[in-house]
């Protein structure tokens, strides 16, 4: 694979199949001082939901130099309630202003009765939830006039009375809405550890053709009695088992835009860039693979 010689030349173009980083506002000036070190960035949609001011100004400046992905955390696509039209309108406004190459959201719900719970909460994978999520994804895609990527969740508990395992649930959604998949490899490792399933079998059951982006992040491990609980805190380097599963996914997908997420105890930019460089080495190693 020939790497793009100068990511700045690729601003306003698709996100390259290289490793980008989650954009943290304290890093903006350092990134802009030498943007060629960064292949692309991803910003949380909600952080760009302002009427004006320095946050949007910083994003405008980053956008002029680097390809951008917008990642929503608050639409509650997996909730039983109708989508919050005001919030969807805010997302549409962000997408219009920044024209990102990728737009993504989560398979989760995050509010009930008008209260926003500041979390990505688990969906019970039954037929009714499937229809609800599919309806919500259609609504978002119609409103935005483009397809979105849907991210697999990190889970701590599982529901009784489900009709689908998560890969089958996601396969149905991608097949019936045309949406893409944001494969969060760290989330697979976290969920597999917490719920006791095999992460490789999970990947094998998942249709990877719709994967348009991969997320990598670290998670926190805590002993609870005899058990090991994995907490998806995005506060440390990517774990060895996550790198391993990432390589397995790449062996099927070939190079895919890959994001290093780091959201708590955010370190110096150089730490994020070193993680991205490590991901880039794996992306190059699988450059010969044609997409699944």
């Amino acid at each position: 694979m020939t790497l793009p010689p100068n990511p700045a030349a690729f601003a306003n173009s698709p996100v390259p199949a290289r490793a980008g980083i989650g954009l943290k506002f304290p890093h903006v000036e350092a990134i802009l001082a030498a943007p060629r070190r960064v292949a692309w960035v991803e910003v949380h949609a909600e952080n760009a939901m302002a009427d004006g001011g320095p946050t949007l100004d910083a994003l405008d400046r980053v956008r002029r130099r680097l390809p951008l992905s917008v990642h929503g955390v608050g639409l509650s696509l997996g909730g039983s309630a109708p989508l919050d039209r005001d919030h969807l309108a805010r997302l549409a406004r962000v997408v219009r202003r920044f024209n990102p190459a990728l737009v993504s959201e989560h398979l989760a719900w995050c509010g009930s009765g008008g209260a926003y719970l500041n979390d990505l909460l688990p969906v019970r994978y039954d037929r009714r939830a499937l229809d609800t999520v599919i309806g919500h994804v259609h609504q978002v895609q119609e409103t935005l006039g483009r397809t979105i990527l849907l991210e697999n969740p990190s889970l701590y508990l599982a529901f009784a009375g489900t009709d689908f395992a998560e890969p089958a649930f996601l396969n149905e959604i991608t097949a019936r809405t045309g949406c893409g998949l944001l494969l969060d490899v760290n989330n697979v490792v976290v969920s597999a550890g917490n719920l006791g399933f095999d992460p490789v079998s999970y990947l094998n059951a998942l249709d990877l053709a719709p994967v348009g982006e991969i997320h990598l992040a670290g998670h926190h491990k805590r002993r609870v009695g005899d058990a090991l609980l994995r907490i998806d805190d995005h506060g440390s380097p990517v774990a060895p088992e996550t790198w391993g599963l990432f390589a397995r996914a790449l062996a099927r997908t070939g190079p895919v835009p890959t994001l290093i997420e780091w959201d708590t105890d955010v370190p110096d930019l150089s730490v994020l860039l070193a993680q991205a460089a490590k991901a880039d080495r794996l992306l190059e190693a699988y450059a010969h693979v044609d997409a699944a």
Partner: protein
Amino acid sequence: MLTQPDLERAFRDHILGADLPASLLDALTHGPVVPAAEVLAIHRNTFALGLAEALGALFPAVRAVVGEDCFAGLATAHARAHPPRTPVLSAHGDTFADFLAAHPAVAGLPYLADLARLDRAWTEAQHAADAPPLTTDDLCWALSAGPVPVLRPHPALRALRLDHGVRDLWHRARRPDDDADVPAVAPGPQYVLVVRPHLAVTVHAADAGIHALLNALAAGRALEPVLHDARAADPAFTPEDTLGRLVALGAFDCIPQP
């Protein structure tokens, strides 16, 4: 079996502080690696700690004055009593000042709510719509060009009347690394302007006359009667000085050119 909406309500109520309902435990599979109650505590923590951190970033002066631990307790109590209505967390905390004013744990700090009002006004100004501020040249041109123009406050302007004189304390509390003495709270009321004509928010002293004038203009009243009222209220009022200072601060929106 709980329906999905029932499940979400049970989850929500538990996150907001209710005991763990048996119906929610029954809806979960038995056999995951860690007991469900332990795991539900993670979601509770994500809500409480996540919002305490978000609120701390939005109310740094309040946090600096009460300390991290006290702030975390207040923020968690506030989040449970007034959960956010939107995922846009910069909007969270519009009820925090009133919450503090009524909270018995901080009754000994009656000025805390005013610090919160100033923190809140700073955040609102930070995220308000951008607009080129009215310049002195614009104003002179408008005054010479015809009828007295309508002056509209800049979208980022916030004019506050505080019960306590906390402006100096607020400035100091927003600079935790400063080793200057902590200023005392002055007797109130105190009038304050928060402006952001371009990208940087700044905070300035005002007085009752300026406060009344800006509120009248914000309500859409024409400039001439507003200046007339200001002179009636304060014989020493000089429109040139006051308008000149407000224009220099970037307090007004530009006048649309015909």
